[in-house]
């Protein structure tokens, strides 16, 4: 897994790419929790994620719940079909705010 973090229109965009799996999800977790703790609204760009497993999804849930408690924004952007399928199987497509494109999210 690789990631980049940038700012667009006052929002932090964290783009994950590659495989978010049992090996890499602790890094995704630390990244996303850190960004949420900074108090900014966070968009997680999943357009480069080829594979995400339950541990990766758990990292998204944890960051989402932290943001909700803090009252800051947290949403997912452009999940690949495989990432969206995992979210749908876990019934999380109804829990997360999911934007089709970054332009939609900003």
């Amino acid at each position: 897994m690789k990631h980049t973090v940038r700012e667009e229109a006052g929002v932090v965009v964290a783009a994950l790419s590659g495989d978010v799996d049992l090996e890499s999800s602790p890094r995704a977790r630390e990244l996303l929790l850190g960004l949420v703790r900074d108090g900014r609204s966070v968009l997680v760009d999943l357009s480069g994620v080829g594979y995400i497993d339950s541990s990766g999804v758990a990292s998204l849930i944890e960051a989402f719940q932290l943001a909700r408690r803090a009252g800051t924004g947290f949403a997912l952007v452009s999940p690949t079909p495989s990432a969206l399928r995992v979210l749908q199987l876990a019934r999380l497509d109804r829990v997360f705010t999911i934007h089709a494109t970054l332009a939609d999210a900003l």
Partner: protein
Amino acid sequence: MSGPRAPEPGAPLLRHRFPARAVELRSVREAVRREALGQGCAPECAADIVMAVDEACQNIIRHAYAGRGDGEIVLEIERAGEDLVVSLRDFAPPVDPSRVRPRDLDDVRPGGLGTHLIRECMDGADFAPAPPGGGNLLRMRKRISSGQEKR
């Protein structure tokens, strides 16, 4: 292992023994995907099998071996008619199958999704009786779906 070794007409298509560590799972996923596609699975069908194997391996690594780094997993894929049968054998203390259950999805929390994903992705997933020598044996079955007829 003891007992007669009869010729095996149904020798596995794939047999892979690997350390029960997170770093191994990427190559396991690639091997499973290649085999599933080679057996005629559509990419979506292969992706489901890959996800189920990955999640089941995670359960073994995290729960059966409880993070111990020295365990091993044996993966086998066999063909049974129009099904692919995936077996995962570990050598950890026996798990209680009744404790390996999908959780209530309305309870949104970070853990416990893996077993649910396995059941969603496969047509069957059950622990077989404890194999000789101990450990656990999970068998999962998936009907091969080509997605569309090619001829």
